[in-house]
């Protein structure tokens, strides 16, 4: 599977670049935004598997704003919030709005990678399920067409058989003529 594309959103340049480097090293495909406003612009332009965003940021768009814009843009994007110590309530608000998880500062990278692996695994399962579903839909469509054609053909034959039977049972015309008519039918 392709490496998860992760957007790191943090107004602190040090933690931003640290996160980005760690992610890169761990085999992920990170990009960075220096605040919520830039993040919203980037999210609108392309798909990210994961948005990892600080909760508190200056500039009018905070982590919740980034979360909302990510979910608005694509439900498949998973958002992980980074919160300062003691702001659990905000994190829970974020979870209610559709964030998949939150991490507390200072970030424990093992924990972060564990979360990302979970997302990766979920992606994998989803892909398998989607592949299966697509295969099922293709099969269902093809067999549906076949069955429906047969259904119409049988109904058609039945009604022809019915009229042949009607012709053959008529007593008002000679047998030979009845057979003639039935064959032509």
């Amino acid at each position, binding site marked *: 599977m392709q490496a998860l594309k992760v957007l790191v959103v943090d107004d602190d340049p040090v933690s931003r670049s640290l996160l980005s480097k760690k992610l890169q090293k761990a085999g992920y495909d990170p990009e960075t935004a220096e605040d919520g406003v830039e993040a919203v612009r980037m999210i609108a332009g392309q798909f990210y598997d994961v948005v990892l965003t600080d909760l508190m940021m200056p500039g009018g768009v905070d982590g919740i704003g980034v979360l909302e814009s990510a979910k608005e843009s694509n439900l498949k994007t998973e958002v992980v919030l980074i919160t300062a110590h003691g702001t659990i309530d905000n994190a829970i608000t974020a979870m209610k*709005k*559709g964030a998949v998880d939150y991490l507390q500062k200072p970030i424990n990278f093992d924990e972060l990678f564990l979360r990302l692996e979970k997302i990766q695994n979920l992606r994998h399962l989803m892909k398998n399920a989607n592949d299966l579903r697509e295969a099922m839909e293709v099969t269902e469509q093809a067999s549906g067409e076949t*069955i429906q054609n047969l259904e119409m053909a049988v*109904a058609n034959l039945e009604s022809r058989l019915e009229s042949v039977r009607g012709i053959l049972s008529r007593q008002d015309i000679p047998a030979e003529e009845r057979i003639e008519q039935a064959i032509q039918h």
Partner: protein
Amino acid sequence: MVRNASATSMANNGSANLPRAPLGRGMKKNIKIKPDEIQLFAKYIHGVSGIHIEASKAYLLETRLGRLLEAEGCATYGEFYQKVKTDRSEALEKKVVDAITTNETLFFRDANPFELLRHKIIPEVIDYHASRTIAAPIRIWSAACSTGQEVYSIAIVLKELLGRANLVNIDLMGTDLSDAAVKQASYGAYNKFEIERGLPKNQLQRYFFSSGENWKVKDDIRSMATFRKFNLMQPFSALGKFDIIFCRNVAIYFTLEDRKKLFNKIADALEPNGFLIIGSTESLTGVCPRFVPKRHLKSIFYQLR
């Protein structure tokens, strides 16, 4: 109620009553169902749901009932059967039905029937009603509505087709055997996996609102539909007559004999000019001669002869 969701993992079916696999192996042993127990359950399940389970499909019973059996602390399926049968509250029966029924469904599952509804059936039913002297609501029944996606898809089509004004004259009912499915349908909330399937984004935004992790059907769509539990093995006489009946992908779980009974009852419950829609891979040939198939573009619907 439709096609499988037997997602119950075999690995989860550990047992407290059988010797456990050595620690660290990770695999736990499943309780196996014995042939006579298969027969007991097959007969019981047929009785309460009409669903026919072949003796060769023991694995299906194990994957679907295994967890319930463990939760009840039973050591064998025979013991579990006795417990289900003697449970006066019928709570266990509900759980068994929920576990055995499948809820694979999605919004606008197979687009064709909904196009058919939009362009052919609804206009014809409206004309038919207009020609009658007695004003009666247009009655639509989704006979195995599962978690409600089919019903809300129908409601969306109706809303888009008729706008606000005519909706009062429509009676849209969804029924399902499973209490859990009816409950979800009635609540009208779907998680992102359910919502992503089949529903175009513009319709999602127009007819649903986000509620935490879930999406809920907006009130104007929700209020168009009613839901109730109903077993298709029961008589239909209390339901009245319908203009349109959807009965998709449920009869496939029945024996031919039960299928014949089912579609015969559906024929009785259909208005003379009514429409029946079945699953795209289903056929009524050899099942119910009272229906004649008709084609419209890429779809087939059935009407009474």
